[in-house]
């Protein structure tokens, strides 16, 4: 087990290095004149040249990359070129916001999807058909459209929630709920659809297994069979889908955070990338890649705990 974790950590580190190198060079390919973008159209050519020099943009590209890498290895990711904020601070404060949305959406979608999936798989008939149609619809409607509709109806027309902004959980729980409920709802819908379909399929498969018949013949209640035995077996594939959805939700957060003006990493990613704020974008790339590596590792461990057959050691 320990060797497995160690191997995953080492491969994760290699992955981070490769991703950071590719990202750095890609950023430069589409970069353009960053100093001009920082200073705007009114700055003179001399001012722009001086700014380029100050940021080290007049050095050869490999040298710039090495100097960034040297800092990054020592935990110094520099400061944003557009706001002066240290990259580490910018990311940690925003990651917490995004994670509260993404984890919230994952929990909500997991619970609802399991309930719907099991319901459809055990009841079948019209309930099953309705659940299937609804989940296809949920999958088909774009997240941003759902987000916009939710804002217009629940925040602006009914004034039940805040249309934009974010209130920290530590400041006020009710305030936090009023700012995250709609984004979580918008994020969850697509994800619920995907997981529901998976849970439904897995549960139907598991219900056909011999051990279920044996358990039934031993007189166990159907609820006990489904929740104690079937779900545990059907959980593996659903968990794999959940992991993919979790990472997908990070992508979904980009749009949802824009619509709700939430200061998360999705929102800042869009701004920083379009501006060419290289230190901040690089920090975001590393943070997101590390998160994906960690989530995948955790899911692998969870799979092992759920299903002894996939344990490695």
């Amino acid at each position: 087990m320990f060797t497995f974790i160690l191997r995953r950590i080492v491969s994760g580190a290699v992955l981070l290095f490769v991703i950071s190198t590719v990202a750095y060079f890609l950023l430069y390919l589409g970069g353009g004149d960053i100093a001009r973008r920082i200073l705007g159209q009114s700055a003179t050519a001399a001012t722009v040249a001086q700014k380029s020099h100050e940021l080290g943009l007049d050095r050869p590209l490999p040298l710039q990359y090495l100097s960034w890498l040297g800092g990054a290895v020592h935990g110094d990711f520099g400061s944003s070129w557009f706001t002066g904020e240290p990259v580490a601070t910018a990311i940690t404060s925003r990651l917490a916001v995004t994670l509260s949305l993404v984890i919230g959406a994952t929990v909500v979608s997991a619970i609802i999807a399991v309930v719907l999936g099991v319901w459809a798989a055990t009841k079948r008939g019209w309930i099953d058909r309705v659940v299937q149609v609804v989940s296809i619809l949920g999958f088909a409607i774009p997240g941003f459209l759902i987000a916009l509709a939710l804002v217009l109806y629940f925040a602006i027309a009914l004034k039940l929630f805040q249309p934009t902004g974010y209130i920290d959980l530590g400041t006020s729980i009710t305030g936090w709920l009023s700012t995250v409920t709609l984004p979580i709802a918008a994020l969850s819908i697509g994800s619920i659809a995907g997981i529901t379909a998976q849970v439904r399929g897995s549960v139907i498969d598991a219900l056909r297994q011999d051990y279920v018949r044996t358990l039934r013949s031993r007189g166990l209640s159907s609820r006990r069979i489904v929740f104690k035995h079937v779900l545990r077996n059907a959980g593996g594939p659903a968990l794999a889908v959940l992991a993919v959805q979790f990472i997908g939700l990070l992508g979904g957060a980009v749009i949802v955070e824009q619509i709700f003006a939430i200061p998360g990493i999705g929102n800042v990613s869009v701004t920083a990338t379009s501006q060419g704020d290289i230190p901040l974008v690089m920090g975001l790339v590393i943070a997101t890649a590390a998160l994906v590596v960690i989530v995948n590792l955790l899911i692998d461990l969870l799979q092992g705990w759920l299903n002894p057959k996939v344990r490695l050691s």
Partner: protein
Amino acid sequence: MFRWKRLAAAAVVVALGLTGCSANTGTSGTSSTGATLNLGVLVPATSFAAAGMSWANEAPYGQAVYDGLVRANPDGTIVPWLATSWSYNADKTVLTMKLRTDVKFTDGTAFDASVAAQNLLRFRDGTAANKSFLVNVADAKASDASTLVITLKAPDPSMLTYLSQAPGLEESPKAFGSATEKTVPVGSGPYILDQAHTVVGSTYTFTKNPKYWAPKDQHYAKLVYKVFGSSTALLNALKGGQLNAANTYDNSTLTQIKAAGYTVLPLELNWTGFLLLDRDGTVAKALSDVRVRQAINYAFDTKALLKTIGQGYGTPTTQIFPVNSPGYDKSLDSYYSYDPAKAKQLMSDAGYANGFTLSTPIAPAFFGTAVYTLIKQELGAIGITVKETDPGNNFIADLLAPKYPAALMVLQEDPTAWQLANFALTDAATFNPYHVKDATVAALVAKIQTGSQADADQATKDLNTYIVKQAWFAPWYRQQSSFVVDKNTTTTVQQGNAFPYLWNFQPKG
């Protein structure tokens, strides 16, 4: 059997949601008491270091935490602030300013002439976007604690206007060069940045400076600036009543904003049109002929372009000087009226009866695509074939490199003639990338620089007329910028600036 449990769970979720919201409507609603001013802004602060600050949409950041040497009234008139009086020597190369002596920075350091001199020189030598404003400053010294002497290499008629903007902001000398200078401002201004409630790039909170020397200008106990990266989020925040006032991205949302109870304060800050940069014909020989440039002016149907591209918000014009400039002449708004036949005749007179090819960069991400179709059509109608290139993020850099002889652009209308000349007309101007020299322009600009007020005003008028007749540009219209305020807030738009000045915001009633 478990239905009641599910119902109960659903009820709890709904109740939680509702309590969350109802508890919050009190704080999210628009404030009318002057307790908090919620401002919607379009950009974060590039830097909070006084020597690196930007202006325009970033002005409210600097004005919250710093005092300026002088202030500009909404009409642009310069009035005293930290400098109580000032005077120039005879040849306008030495500006002497008397400064207040009762001002302290929030770290307890006293403000004096030596601090003011250091701030000026730091701005001149820094990398702020407008550092070139101080290019004429040879030196700044304190002759005594309350007297600042600024020596200029050459007269600069806009110096006082510059000192009312970023170059005049005063930062505590103890903060100079500190590790947190860009994010933690130390000034003497009416408000202090509340870092605990600030998320850089998204939300900036400022609290009242309890020891401010001019408390009459602190109209609010707290300021909250919310940065909106998209027009949709800004519109939703306005519709939800989360903002007292905001700058807007585009005029297409104004109807909805008005319906939400906001008042629109219009202001014309920029002009949209075609830049005819290569007037010497370095790469596009045809543009060196004034008749061709005039033909291009006649080829554009400015009224139709305003309607379709500018959604009708603005005024058609063929001049680049703003309405409040002494150089402004109403008749120049329609000097070239849409006349393709006349345009064709001018092309033929210039020897281009068969037209020519004009290479131009496009920026569909900024201007959309419809406008480029119209340009192709209208120039095509007089025989000019437009060859488009999309330089992506490098649009402005390539334009100023210079890589293109002409381009569609939105340019600012600077508040003073001297600024406008240095921005777009003189041979060293940023938006004269081919460095086209013109003796008439040089002579008129020299008069603006060194002449008496009356002479300078006349020279500005002559300069504007000359530029229009020589067709240096092909302007279409001055587009309306729209600042919006709710029913509890008043402010006055600032001539030449995208954001009203902070001290002009007041709670109504």
